[in-house]
């Protein structure tokens, strides 16, 4: 029974740790895939959300000068851990709202079994599945990242405009890759393009040469890789380059990662383009980029802008709602509906004054304006990026 006693002791330890919550703080949950398949991306996303929290606290705190605290939970990119983390955040930590979870499956489970019943507003910075749109959520589930539907279609139109009429598509077999691939194919074929190869692949394999050879047999010289640039997307890109299967490579936001540049070298990536969401008002993006660089973050890492926006907007909404959990979701719509004084990332003191004066504000985020539609989704603003030096630079806007 020794181990059982240790277990009981650990449980008691947990319980005593719970017994001393600091009441003065206003807490928001930061649920992310700290462990699990997106472990490489999650820390930067959590850091950028923490930047928003730090800015709030540096500029006088939230509500009556209280401290805003981010409680990190590990949703591990699966429903089991996501519901567990969300339950703890909502019930034990008493969070007012949640940024996250990161993966769509985790969002669906956590929203359905925890946050919707509890009436807590959540904003996911990276859950891109179209299924999130149709959640019966009493208007409590939002996202600062566009549904995959938008991006896939925008990418298809952009490629056709650039004169690429025939492509092969390789996509990671998860909700992200599949959602993108299907919307891309629908739009591309509808507008007169030809899909010469269309295949899913599993992540984390050592070799994709057979997949690539089969895709290349369709005769296209452009490969669209809908995958993550720090995972199997990188392997695929490397092997396609090494073996000369394709000449041009197109990725979506998941591929716009530093890993390919570091691993493959910018000189080998001249024919590589990636689409990614950008802020429509570039001043917003600049403000964020500067602030995030100042705290040692990398502003071009994936989903950091959406994570930051989610956290900052929730802070604004909490301020607007006077700290009332039940009103946060409604306030979230009020602080960013296209009407009122524009607020840029980091302008907390200004926003707080305007809210106190009862004036309307309109947050212009680093990743877009975030004027939510009825389902709590945002339309995407995308640009096509090319590799330049050690980073990415915009080639053209995408419509």
């Amino acid at each position: 029974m020794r181990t059982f006693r240790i277990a009981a002791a650990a449980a008691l330890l947990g319980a005593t740790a719970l017994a001393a919550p600091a009441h003065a703080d206003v807490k928001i949950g930061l649920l992310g895939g700290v462990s699990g398949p997106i472990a490489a991306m999650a820390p930067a996303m959590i850091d950028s959300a923490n930047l928003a929290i730090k800015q709030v606290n540096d500029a006088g705190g939230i509500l009556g000068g209280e401290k805003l605290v981010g409680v990190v939970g590990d949703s591990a990119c699966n429903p089991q851990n996501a519901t567990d983390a969300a339950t703890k955040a909502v019930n034990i930590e008493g969070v007012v709202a949640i940024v996250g979870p990161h993966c769509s499956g985790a969002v669906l489970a956590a929203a359905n079994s925890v946050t919707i019943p509890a009436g807590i507003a959540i904003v996911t910075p990276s859950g891109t599945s179209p299924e999130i749109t149709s959640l019966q959520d009493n208007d409590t589930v939002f996202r600062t990242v566009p549904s995959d539907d938008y991006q896939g279609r925008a990418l298809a139109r952009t490629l056709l405009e650039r004169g690429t009429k025939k492509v092969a598509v390789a996509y990671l077999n998860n909700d992200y890759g599949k959602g993108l691939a299907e919307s891309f194919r629908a739009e591309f074929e509808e507008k007169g393009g030809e899909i010469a190869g269309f295949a899913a692949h599993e992540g984390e394999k050592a070799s994709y040469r057979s997949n690539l050879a089969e895709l290349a047999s369709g005769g296209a010289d452009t490969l669209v890789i809908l995958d993550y640039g720090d995972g199997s997307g990188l392997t695929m890109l490397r092997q396609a380059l090494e073996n000369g299967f394709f000449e041009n490579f197109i990725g979506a936001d998941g591929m716009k990662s530093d890993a390919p540049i570091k691993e493959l070298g910018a000189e080998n990536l001249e024919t590589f383009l990636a689409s990614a969401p950008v802020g429509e008002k570039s001043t917003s993006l600049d403000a964020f980029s500067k602030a995030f660089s100042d705290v040692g973050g990398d502003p071009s890492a994936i989903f950091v802008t959406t994570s930051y926006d989610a956290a900052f907007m929730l802070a604004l909404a909490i301020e607007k709602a006077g700290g009332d959990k039940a009103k946060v979701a409604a306030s979230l719509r009020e602080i960013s509906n296209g009407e009122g004084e524009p607020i840029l990332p980091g302008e907390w003191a200004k926003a707080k004054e305007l809210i106190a004066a009862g004036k309307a504000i309109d947050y212009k985020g680093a990743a877009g304006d975030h004027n939510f539609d009825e389902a709590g989704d945002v339309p995407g603003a995308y640009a096509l990026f090319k590799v330049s030096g050690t980073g990415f630079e915009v080639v053209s806007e995408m419509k």
Partner: protein
Amino acid sequence: MEWLGFVNYAVFMAIFIGIYALLALGLNIQWGYTGLFNAGIAGFFAVGAYTSAILTTPFVEGRVGGFGLPVPVGWLGAMVAAGLIAWPIGKICLRLRSDYLAIATIGVAEIIRLVVKSEGWLTNAARGITNIPRPFGDLAYTMSQLAYLAIVLGVLLAAYLLVERQFASPWGRMMRAIRDNEDAARAMGKDVPYRRLEAFIFGSALMGLGGALFAHFNRTITPEAIDPMVATFLVWIMLILGGSGNNRGAILGVAVVWIIWSMSEIVTDRLPHEYAVKAKYLRVFLIGLMLQVVLRFRPEGLLPEPQKRTHRPDPATSGARPPAASD
């Protein structure tokens, strides 16, 4: 309102423990009593979850179903489907000896996972199935959770009593005989392959039921839920730690592992931020360490298999085999 939060959290943990306990009971039938090394729990979990989801969701375009049937029908269907899938698998794979069986079942679980992820007409592929009805899901948060907990506990109690009764019966003694000395059992005229198949199907049906309860609790099922880490190996750790061959041990193991896993995060959240994120990785390590410690110091688990149930005082055969050691 602080206490209400504790209640909600405790009820949530209890529901999860109940669901995982069903998986552990299923595994206990297979490994604990019959010695079948099934490393494909996630596959049967998935079959159950998706079957019930397809049967009970309202009709949607683009995939099979939903048939909008009552939830109990979905749960029964989940057990039947998991059992039906287990039948041909068992028929082929159970001829393999234990470690080969483990490899074969891992493969089967991966096949099921890939089918689930790829066949959009059946499972809506990577996007998963949503709008799965939860019984009493329209009640307020706490009440709805309590109602679901009552259902899970009811199902678990029924499963526990039935499995216990089965093992106290001659069938249970026969299964242990087959596990401990297959040749002797065969010499006694027992149809060993058939009996092992029985145990494999019963266990898999329970795993399917666990999957169904999980899907209805979350009102959604996505392929991310059938990750082998959380749906197969975690269950193994729970059973080994609790004590394979003992149903109460299986349930205790589930409770201990889940409580430590879940509550350790609350403790690590008290650390300063930069450590709090790193400590999340430590939790994974903690579970592995726990398994190592148990295997080293208490290989029979917290509650070992009861040895005195049978009436034969035979030191030659009742003995030395620790259930945790793999052969």
